[in-house]
């Protein structure tokens, strides 16, 4: 398969290298939009409020796993830690900076180390400037510039884009952490209805970005996985050695010089319900070949939707769905991929108990024996967290992933695999400077 996949990448040609009711909304929206330049401008003589907050997380884990050889180690196992990587491990060492200047300008940098030999020992996963004026007549504009996550995950709410409910995020949010990053600009317009006495709030947004033409590679070569390792901005995205096609791929590489986009919308009902939807298209030109990577630009697009429901103060239910396509080599090879999950979480004092079911599939539109993977699978995850102190918690997570991937035959493995992993983590959040 690997030879065929590499052969498929041989270039055939090289191309050159965004007070109630609708009646009340309309005029206030108009005013808000007219005032947009003023909103986006930093006040000429602002009350200089400045804040620098630096904090860190140390996450150390004891791991027991019977997983197949992990894709991080050249296999087609879907877990971060396989049976050859058990015992005491670094979950992550995280460093986060939040700076706030001139009241409405915010700077965020998140960096992480997984101590697994990536290019840099500490590398950012996000780095962006956000301009967030005070609301005006219930409307607020928000601009982000830099490298950041698209507003897809309803699960990853902790600083550093980590899951608030388990150590390992869902398959959908695993993939977003691995291959998607907005390196560009995003504009959001929110209507803060609750500030005006309504029960609903709405928001729309759009972004233009570059440097994300490798997105889809992992879906095609490995399929979905479940791990909490986010790709860093200067690290390797698909390098992590999927099967014999192991090769480095810097995350930031821009292959076709063409900007991608996404548009999104969200709605919130009181504290009870949040809905999100997003359409993503990296608009990569799959005809463009990059000799330095020995790869094409991957044209990847998808739709995603999700809901977070809080039926009672201590209960949270989250569901996300994502379905899309990725094509390479002039649309010669295309894969359809999709996943969905359902998560339930119960908070009881300092205890948080969560359970999640993931379902995922990857289907090649071309004959499967030529290139890439076909995959079908599901996973169960159960997690328990106990907050020992304000900044210290212990987490226990057990998961089982059942998957079938014919491509494993080429590695001398059975197509079907049941992988289990138990992680016990101690997580310490440290405020370094405040």
């Amino acid at each position, binding site marked *: 398969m690997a030879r065929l996949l590499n052969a498929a990448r041989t270039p055939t040609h090289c191309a050159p290298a965004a007070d109630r009711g609708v009646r009340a909304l309309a005029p206030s929206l108009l005013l808000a939009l007219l005032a947009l330049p003023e909103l986006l401008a930093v006040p000429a003589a602002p009350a200089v*409020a400045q804040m620098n907050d630096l904090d860190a997380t140390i996450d150390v884990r004891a791991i027991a796993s019977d997983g197949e050889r992990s894709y991080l180690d050249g296999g087609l196992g879907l877990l971060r830690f396989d049976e050859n990587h058990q015992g005491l491990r670094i979950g992550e060492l995280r460093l986060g900076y939040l700076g*706030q200047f001139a009241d409405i300008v915010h700077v965020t940098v998140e960096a992480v180390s997984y101590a697994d030999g990536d290019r840099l020992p500490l590398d950012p996963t996000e780095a962006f400037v956000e301009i967030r004026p*005070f609301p005006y007549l219930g409307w607020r504009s928000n601009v982000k510039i830099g490298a950041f*996550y698209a507003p897809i995950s309803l699960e990853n709410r902790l600083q550093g884009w980590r899951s608030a409910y388990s150590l390992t995020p869902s398959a959908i949010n695993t993939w977003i952490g691995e291959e998607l990053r907005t390196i560009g600009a995003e504009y959001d317009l929110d209507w803060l209805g609750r500030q005006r*006495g309504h029960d609903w709030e709405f928001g729309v947004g759009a972004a233009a970005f570059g440097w994300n033409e490798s997105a889809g590679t992992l879906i095609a070569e490995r399929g979905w996985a479940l791990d909490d390792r986010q790709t860093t901005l200067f690290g390797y995205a698909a390098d992590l050695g999927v099967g014999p096609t192991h090769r480095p791929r810097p995350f930031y590489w821009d292959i076709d010089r063409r900007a991608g986009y996404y548009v999104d919308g969200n709605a919130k009902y009181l504290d009870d319900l949040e809905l999100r939807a997003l359409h993503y298209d990296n608009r990569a030109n799959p005809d463009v070949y990059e000799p330095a990577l020995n790869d094409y630009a991957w044209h990847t697009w998808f739709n995603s939707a999700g809901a977070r429901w809080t039926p009672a*103060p201590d209960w949270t239910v989250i569901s996300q769905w994502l379905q899309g396509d990725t094509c390479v080599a002039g649309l010669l090879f295309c894969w359809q991929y999709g996943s969905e999950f359902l998560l339930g979480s119960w908070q009881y004092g300092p205890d948080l108990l969560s359970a999640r079911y993931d379902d995922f599939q990857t289907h090649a539109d071309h004959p499967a024996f030529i290139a890439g993977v076909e995959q079908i699978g599901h996973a169960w995850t159960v997690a328990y967290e106990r907050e020992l102190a304000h900044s210290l918690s212990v987490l226990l997570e057990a998961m089982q992933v059942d998957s079938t991937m014919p491509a494993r035959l080429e590695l001398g493995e059975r197509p079907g695999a049941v992988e289990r992993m138990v992680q016990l983590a101690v997580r310490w959040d440290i405020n370094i400077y*405040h």
Partner: protein
Amino acid sequence: MRNNAQRRAGTHVNLRLRRASQSVNWCSVLCAALALLIATVARTADLSISVLDAHGRGVAGLVLVAMPDNAAARKRIGRVAVMDQINMQFVPDILVIQTGSSVDFPNSDQIQHQVYSFSAAKRFQLSLYAGHKYPPVVFDRPGLVTVGCNIHDSMLGYIYVTDSPYFGRSDAHGQLTLHNLPSGSYTVTAWHPRLEEGSANELHLRTTVVESEPGTVLFQLRRTVPISMPPHESKKWLDY
């Protein structure tokens, strides 16, 4: 000489008369005040307000205000209330204050907040801060003021500003007792942001307070009210 002696004697008489007159005045004032106090105490009564849901259970947390028809009974007592910020929530999430009172907004979180309101009754902005940085904000107009944090949209607080000095919130049993209300006619209001009954989430009842006779008012709701969410966000959650 005589004239001088008479003038001196007359002066002494005048002084004695003036002192006597002053004593009479002070006595009058004290007596009048005492009489007024007695009269006032005698002309007041307690008012017990109950809020029950459709199942007959007490509803906690509702803002309850007894507004006297007599404007003279709406004496202003300026106070300072506190709305803290704890675990990325306003605590308490609902305040009821009298017009002219102030609210202090300390931030007890480790992270900074940026408090604002664009409600018609009070517009204000507090630039990014932690701890106790700003003096209390004066609320000089009656009405509902919704406060938020521009960094954390999930933070939402309500300040109900009323001209009446007689207010409070229902307890865990749905009860509130207001003490020493002057006799007269009142409009009793029940409000909560999630009270989806009446107009603008408000219910009104009329009642008359009769001196020395404890009164009762009952708000019987048609449905169960999902009252304030207790703090759930114990972590540094962000809006990704």
